Each structure stands twice: as C-alpha cells, then as structure tokens.
C-alpha cells in the first residue's frame, strides 16, 4: 500500500467510532443542553437542576424562558443540518446549503409577505400559517433551482449556485421593499427574521416546529439508502430500481417543510446546513443512513452552543445567533470552495 493509499483510507479508530457515533452524539447533546440551561442572566446551577432543588423564580425562568429556547435550538439546529445533508445528496454536491442556494431567503420572503400583508399573527394558527408560507417559498425556490440547473441538459453545479445568487438577490429586494412598506412593529419583526435569532422562543413555537420537523426528518432518514444510490446519478439509480422522481419529490418536500418550519420560528440562520454535514462526512463517511441522523445531533449541538454564546457573550444585550453562525460559516465555505477547485470533489 502506497503512502497515498494510507492517506485516503478511513483510519481504523474512526471505523470503530461509527457504531457508537449516534449514542455518543446523543449524550453530548444532553450534556450541552443541561449546561446551556444553567447559563444565563439568572444563575441556575447545574447541581440544582439535576437535584431538583430549585427556587420558584428559578423554576419559572427555566420552564418559560430557558427550556423552550434550548429545545428550540435543538430542533432548529437539527432541522437545518438534516435539510443541508439531504439537499447536498439531492443536488449531488457538498456545496448545496439551503441558505446559499436561496431556499432560506425565499422562505423568509414568503414569511415577510405574510407579516406585512396579514398583520401581526400569533399563537398556533399564526405560526402554522407562517410555517406553511415559508414552506411554499422554499418549495418554489427548489423548483426554480432544479429547472435552471438542468438547462444545460445535465445537472450543473455552476448553474445551481448562480441561480441561488439570483434568488437571494430577488428575495433580498423583496424583503427590502416590504421593509419600506412596513410600520414600526412590522419592521422589528422583519429585522428579527432576516438576522436569525432564537430569542422569541416559546413553547408554542417549539411545538409547531417539532410537529413539522420531526416527521419530515424521519421520512428523510427512511429514504437514506435510496439517497445513497441517487449519488451514482439519476439514470444509474433508476437502473437500480429506485423511483427517482418520487424520491426527489419526497426529499424536496421534506426539506422544504423542515427549512420552512425552522425559518418561521427562528429566521434565517445560515451555514449550519453546510458545515455540519461536511464535518460528519469527514469523520463518519458519506453514507446517508448515518449522515442524516448524525447531522441532526451535531446540528443541534452546534446551534445550541452558538445560541448559548450569542445570548451570554454581550450580556445583558443579546447577539442574533444568525450573525454568529455566518461568521463561522462564511470562512468555512471559502475553505470548502478552495478544496473543491483543487480537485478533491470536482465541479
């Protein structure tokens, strides 16, 4: 075996980790969630949470502020990472991130239209309405990207990214125009959405997001093996008995649902869907049967960490977590691009 062979082989210890990766990530998530719940303006020591000896005020903060936020970060982070992983499989390229190719921004545009035209809507009905609007926006963007990327006959990554730029620009213009039309109250809500924050977390938003995201993610996991086969190419997958059109439809709908639900409760939080699946692929390999659930866990962990930093680092003020993820994700994307062009993946 040559030196090169050794370099590209999966190291032995990583192979052994694979079997226990999911339980390990689950435990890590639990630990991070506990720590995150204990940190904040009101100190709630970890020992008190575990021991159950909390004062009334601490219990109130934990139940109505801290916990919904932690759980929402977990659900949104998981949703974004899973949709990123599924999108990358569908587009057969590791650069496909819902944020980069315009899916998130068009979802946000749809939400902005609802906010400005329909006025402030709250509660279950309002959140579901916004989730559905965001789903519609995301679905529309997916459709346009597919159409344009296929213009050249075969699926082109260049066209995918360029279409993403155009959609992002159009959606930004749309949101800008709506900002111009909106009153003060709407303006605040819009700003919150475009920056991405988990600050408005309530149990209502947790429940709405969870009822949409968890079933979608489970359907994606169920289709993981066929998604692997799809990476061979669409006609190859068809030769191997995969109903490609049905598979693509399922993936697009589930991804749009997850992204839509995540965005309607938290705004645009970029790059989680790009960074997380890539990290999992580097360590555990590209098999979607492991990649999708592992991305869900790691996405949850990373967004929870980022949100904990975002709400404590400039206390008593709070930084929108979307800004933090973009600050980490932007350079990461550039690095990935550099690697692609140096021939590791091939465009």
């Amino acid at each position: 075996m040559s030196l090169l062979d050794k370099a590209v082989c999966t190291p032995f210890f990583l192979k052994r980790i694979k079997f226990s990766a999911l339980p390990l990530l689950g435990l890590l998530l639990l630990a991070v969630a506990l720590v995150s719940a204990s940190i904040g303006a009101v100190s709630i020591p970890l020992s008190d949470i575990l021991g159950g000896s909390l004062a009334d005020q601490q219990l109130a903060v934990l139940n109505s502020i801290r916990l919904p936020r932690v759980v929402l970060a977990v659900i949104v982070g998981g949703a974004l990472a899973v949709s990123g992983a599924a999108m990358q499989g569908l587009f057969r390229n590791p650069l496909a991130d819902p944020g980069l190719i315009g899916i998130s921004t068009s979802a946000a545009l749809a939400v902005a239209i609802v906010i400005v035209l329909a006025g402030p809507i709250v509660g279950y009905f309002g959140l579901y309405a916004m989730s559905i609007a965001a789903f519609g926006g995301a679905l529309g963007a997916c459709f346009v990207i597919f159409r344009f990327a296929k213009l050249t006959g075969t699926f082109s990554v260049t066209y995918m990214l360029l279409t993403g730029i155009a959609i992002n620009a159009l959606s930004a213009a749309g949101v800008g125009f709506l900002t111009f039309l909106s009153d003060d109250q709407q303006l605040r809500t819009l700003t919150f959405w475009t920056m991405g924050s988990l600050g408005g977390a309530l149990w209502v938003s947790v429940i709405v997001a969870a009822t949409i995201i968890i079933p979608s993610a489970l359907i994606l996991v169920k289709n993981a093996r066929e998604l692997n086969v799809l990476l061979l190419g669409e006609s190859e997958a068809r030769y191997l008995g995969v109903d490609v059109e049905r598979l693509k439809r399922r993936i697009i709908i589930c991804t749009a649902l997850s992204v839509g639900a995540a965005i309607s409760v938290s705004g645009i939080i970029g790059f989680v869907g790009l960074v997380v699946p890539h990290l999992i692929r580097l360590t555990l390999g590209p098999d979607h049967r492991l990649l999708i659930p592992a991305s869900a866990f790691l996405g949850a962990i990373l967004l929870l960490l980022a949100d904990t930093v975002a709400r404590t680092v400039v206390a008593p003020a709070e930084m929108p977590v979307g800004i933090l993820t973009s600050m980490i994700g932007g350079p990461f994307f550039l690095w990935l691009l550099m690697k692609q062009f140096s021939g590791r993946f091939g465009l």
Partner: protein
Amino acid sequence: MIDAENIVYSIGGQRILAYVYATFRPGDVTAILGPNGAGKSTLLKCLTGALKPDEGRVSLDGKDLRHYSLTELSRRRAVLSQANPISFPFTAHEVVVMGRNPYSLEKTTASNAEIADEALTLVDAWHLRDRSYPSLSGGEQQRVQFARVLSQIWEQEEACLFLDEPTSALDLKHQHQLMDLVQKLCREKNLTVIIVMHDLNLAHHCTDRCFFIREGWIQGGGESKKLITADTISDIFDLPKKYAAMRFGMDLAG
C-alpha cells in the same frame, strides 16, 4: 433475450434512430459499432428502458419493457454507463454494494457485502476496496463501476448486461481482462451482453456478433469475425479504403 422491433427515436424533429430491428440472444456477446453520433448510445438507452422510443417496442424475454416495474427490471438487467462521477467520498466497496440495492430488502447486509467483495476481486480491484472512489483514477473507477454492475445481476441466470464503452479508460491489460471476464460470464450464466464500443480490434476478437449503426439505420447482426472487415469499416465509418486497409486490413480481412 432482448428484442427491438421497429424502434424510432427523434430529438427535436431530428431522427436519431430509424426503424431499428434487432435481436440479442442469451449466451452471445453482441457489439454495437458505428461512428460518433450515429445513435449507438441512444439505441442502448432505448434497449435498457431509460429512453422510451417514439415508435416500436423493446421486449425483454418476450415481455414489453413498459410492463416491467423498476424493481423487476433492476433484477433482470444491469447497465454500465459512460461517465460516472461521484462527488462524495464513498469507498469503492460502498459503491459496489449500491449495486445490490434491488435486493436490499430480502438479502442480509452481510451477504450483499460479501458479493460486493467477490465482484471487486473479479475485476482485479479488491485492493481498492477501502479507497475513496473520487480519489481513484479513471480506469480504476471504471473497474469499480463494472463490479457494481456485476453485483447487481450476481445470482441471476439469463440476465442482460449493457455496457457503454466499458474499456474506454482501461489500459491494455485490463481491457483484455474485462473482455475475457465478460465472455466467461456470458457463457456461464447465459447472459445477454450488449456492448457499445469504439475499438474495432477488440470487437473483432472478443465479441460473437455485431451490429453497425450509421445515421440511425442499423445493419449487420452476423458474426463479428466475418462482419468486421476493411471493406465494411471503410463503408460504415466513411473511411478512405487505404486507411481502412492500413488499420484493419492486415489481421481482420482474412
């Protein structure tokens, strides 16, 4: 056994295939030959069911292709296409195991993995087993894909094997290894093998029968050794006689 009856296929008003009749028999390795853009790959795609012909019908073992389900079809025929880029770092073994997708519900993961290993050994690629597919050379990738296609019809008798330029990236040694393997499997398992190829020498020596396609029209169908001569080559490929004689006259004419 594949039967094409009266196949017509056009793209944007331009006729690619015109009234093609052809029968491909089990136990035979059949080559499809012809100049660039003659319609070879299009014919192959019509025969595999990837393209639906405008007119005519293709039947597999006497049953119209349109009446097969995707899964049924995936157990009766395997297809090796020309370019197979994969942008994710799957190992060669993982790629070959994907060939077992039609059986993933009824066969155990272990038995599928074992078949993939045997297929890799057959194509002289077992040593690439744990290498990342995108890091392999073109010829290595082609052999791994061939192993994937073999694993798809591993335990099937009288299945069909479609190969679109399977030797294009291979060195001489592996070209012959692959063609020997194709011939051997064809006899052993009574496969119907259909190969689109450019290398006329290889076609002459390693295939049983051949068809020529020129501007969408098909001819031939007889024994390769008799059909591939300097005269037919010069005619089909529109090659001046002196070049045809120079390249194929010496060992092929007689």
